[in-house]
């Protein structure tokens, strides 16, 4: 069939997943080789997707869509997973969690995300989402001898399954009231507003908000982030977020665009609540992974603010935001992977006390990342917020803009608190030093990206402004 040629990345991904499984079963202690091969597969896929010159096509009875939006999200997903794999290997070996399934499950979840962001049909979307979620449950509890990790996995599974159920219920309602599972047909049929469509929209919204951890469906985030091994947390806080936000955008702008009046204020509420909670709750945290969890809730709030504006600039600003957010997140986790003392990885923020004396360069990098997370110019984090607020003000939502900027100041407090601990407090013993180029290069690249973004922001603008979703 002719449509197969459009599925090359997905096909390569699935065949390599199965062949890697076979290799893993037949070769003993195959963690290293499988890890390398998976990283290579991801790298290969990045090249393939970049080299595709894709004009927007819809295949399989218009249920699978290939457009610039999907490719952009896929590249972003792949690049962030590439860096996550690059920097977490040493950690996985250190905590003796080197099961060969680990990279394969990551690949599986990426496959799920591919179908999510390309879905133009409720069924395909749900299948992709479930493939992704199931892989994530396993990942959360991958360190199964560790009580916290198992707890995180179970917690995530129960809550996420509930939200998937709600989402599925929403999908079925939507099918019932519009007569189709295809996004375009749904979009055409939502015009004559029925109460059932609104119910369906709200159920789906709840499910999506849960997947991206937006308030009030965020409760699982801090526990899961803290409980899972750091290698998994770094994946959790970056990659599924990208896919989740991409699907969010797709839903709001494709099937539900006609009923924008109905969802806009829900999103404004979700966004404001996430920003406020992310800013306030993170202040009291002492565990860096919990802090990142709350800060990611806040960042998702900003990203959703862009979607809530309901304009073309709005979703583009969200894409820029999520791109920069991914870069910052990779950087901050690269530093967390370096926090090792006496053979044990430490997670308390107080352990960072005075690290700038012993590790000047890495602390400088972390400082840049933290200032960028706080949104201080001229770092990239500022531009992320700037574009969001451009879009928000464009649609006249001044309250959202003002709340957003005030929470920026509040959240700046806990970011600079870390900087204070690193730079102003008395030094402790240095961290263990190890030569792990994956970590250092991820940290350095993330910093260089954040610092040099202001030189020529047009590059990403050019890419993102070509993306069209309507």
């Amino acid at each position, binding site marked *: 069939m002719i449509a197969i040629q459009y599925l090359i990345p997905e096909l390569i991904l699935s065949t390599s997943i199965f062949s890697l499984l076979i290799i893993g079963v037949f070769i003993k202690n195959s963690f290293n080789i499988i890890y390398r091969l998976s990283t290579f597969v991801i790298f290969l896929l990045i090249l393939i997707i970049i080299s595709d010159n894709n004009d927007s096509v819809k295949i399989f009875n218009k249920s699978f869509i290939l457009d610039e939006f999907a490719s952009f999200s896929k590249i972003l997903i792949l690049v962030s997973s590439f860096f996550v794999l690059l920097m977490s290997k040493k950690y996985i070996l250190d905590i003796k969690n080197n099961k060969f399934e680990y990279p394969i499950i990551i690949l599986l979840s990426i496959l799920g995300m591919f179908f999510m962001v390309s879905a133009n049909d409720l069924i395909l979307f749900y299948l992709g989402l479930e493939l992704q979620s199931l892989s994530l449950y396993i990942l959360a509890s991958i360190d199964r001898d560790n009580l916290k990790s198992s707890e995180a996995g179970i917690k995530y599974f129960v809550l996420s399954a509930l939200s998937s159920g709600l989402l599925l219920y929403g999908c079925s309602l939507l099918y019932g009231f519009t007569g189709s599972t295809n996004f375009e047909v749904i979009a055409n049929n939502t015009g004559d507003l029925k109460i059932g469509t609104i119910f369906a929209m709200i159920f789906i919204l709840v499910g999506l908000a849960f997947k991206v951890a937006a308030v009030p469906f965020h409760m699982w985030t801090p526990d899961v982030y803290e409980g899972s091994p750091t290698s998994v947390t770094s994946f959790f806080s970056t990659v599924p977020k990208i896919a989740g936000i991409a699907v969010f955008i797709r839903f709001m702008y494709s099937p539900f665009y006609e009923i924008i009046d109905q969802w806009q204020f829900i999103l404004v509420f979700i966004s404001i609540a996430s920003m406020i909670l992310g800013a306030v709750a993170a202040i009291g945290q002492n565990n860096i992974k919990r802090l990142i969890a709350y800060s990611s809730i806040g960042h998702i709030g900003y990203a959703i603010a862009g979607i809530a504006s309901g304009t073309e600039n709005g979703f583009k600003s969200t894409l820029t935001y999520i791109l920069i957010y991914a870069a910052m997140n990779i950087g901050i986790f690269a530093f967390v992977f370096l926090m090792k003392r006496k053979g044990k990885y430490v997670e308390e923020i107080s352990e960072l006390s005075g690290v700038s004396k012993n590790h000047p360069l890495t602390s400088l990098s972390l400082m840049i990342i933290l200032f960028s997370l706080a949104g201080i110019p001229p770092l990239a984090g500022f531009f992320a917020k700037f574009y969001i607020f451009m879009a928000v003000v*464009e649609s006249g939502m001044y309250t959202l803009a003002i709340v957003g900027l005030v929470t920026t100041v509040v959240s700046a*407090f806990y970011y600079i608190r870390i900087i204070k601990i690193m730079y102003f407090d008395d030094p402790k013993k240095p961290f263990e030093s190890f030569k792990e180029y994956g970590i250092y290069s991820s940290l350095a690249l993330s910093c260089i990206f954040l610092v040099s973004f202001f030189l020529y922001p047009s590059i990403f*603008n050019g890419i993102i402004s070509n993306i069209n979703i309507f």
Partner: protein
Amino acid sequence: MNFPILSSITFLPLIGAFFVFLTRSEINQTNKGAIYVSLFTSFVNFFLALFLWYSFDNKTSDFQFIEELTWISGFIKFKFGIDGISILFILLTAFIVPISVISCINSVKTRLKEFLIAILILETFMIGVFCSLDLVIFYLFFEAGLIPMFLIIGIWGGSRRVYSAFKFFLFTLLGSVLMLIAIISIYWITGTTDVVEIYKIKIPSEFQYLLWLAFFSSFAVKLPMWPVHTWLPDAHVEAPTAGSVILAAILLKMAGYGFLRFSVGMFPIASEYFIPFIFTLSVIAIIYTSLVALMQDDMKKLIAYSSVAHMGFVTLGIFAFNKQGIEGSIIQMFSHGLISAALFLCVGVLYDRTHSRLINYFGGVVHILPKYSFIFMIFVLAALGLPGTSGFVGEFLVLVGTFKVNFLAAILASLGVILSAIYMLWLYKRAVFGKLEKNELKGMKDLNKSEFGILFCLGALILFFGFYPDPLIDTISVSVDNLITNYNLDISQSVALK
């Protein structure tokens, strides 16, 4: 002229900072390489600024040395350009930075290299503020200055440095985020963020009031004006000497500059509407903070409060909207830049020797430090606005300008002059005169060569511009005229519309 001189002045310190970064740092060795590189960069920058002043055409009020680059395509242009007002601030910055670099060589004991990098990066951001003719670029530089200053206070500061650094950072950040919304709104109202374009387009008057308030919130915190000034004494007390110098001499001036360039230039109608508001705050600032300054035990705190009072004169002058007032406030900012820098350096000299800033700790310093006491006296007299110093020129012009529009405000502000004489002279009396009683003071050495050199330069300039302020007034006069003409034109148009 094709040579991009403004970008060179702006980004040269950044390049210098990079080279300082590359120098080898030995822990127990004085870091010669870093010192030489940063001195070299800052002096070259100063000469570039002098050259800029020399080639500046003060006959026209148009923006000169304009540089334009597409930055975010179809949206924001990277636009630099200066007029008579901004060039003075660039000169001031380029002059103060080498001075603070020299001063920190003696006084900063730990992590000198990082300190120099922070100062040079800060210089880039400060000059960028004065050069930029695009709101977004302006905001970028304006905010970016927070990072190095936060680190300077926090890393090299005194005992309560963490509290002060946080207060400084959060206060100014909260003030500025509202300005960011205003900038974005301006973009959606006028379709551009280019200041020159916005001057021409003219923002509709119904939007002006809120936008003015948003900009005001940022500048009022930074200047600082009366109710939101509390971060300044803390920041000054805890910052190292060089940090205080830069904070008082330049960072505060960014807000005054912002009032002139943005609030007055873009929102004339709102500016006129808010004159009584500004006058009230300024007069309160002048009298209240002078009284507070009177009761301080800490020299740095005293000077910090006096800065707030002096900045009150600046806002008073700007919002008098006549030639004397605005020229006076610009000269007041320039001379306050020199005087406050000098005063902080003088306190720093004592602090380096005794590790105390309390006024009562000293007394009779004149017997052992004659040179120091003499130079300190010049600055004290300049701070209280004695004729013959540059402080007098600024305050006098501001008061003349204010008398024209508001008699009461001028009278009350004149009270501030008397109060400043009281607290400055009392400070000098308690610290310098009297008997030398404390034994630990007797071992103090008088000024060394580098301290004497920088204080002498500052003193000479203060006296020179006190007797002969013409070079300054010539530079700004045409631009100020243009500002006032545009302002009056807008006001009369809006009156005619009503």
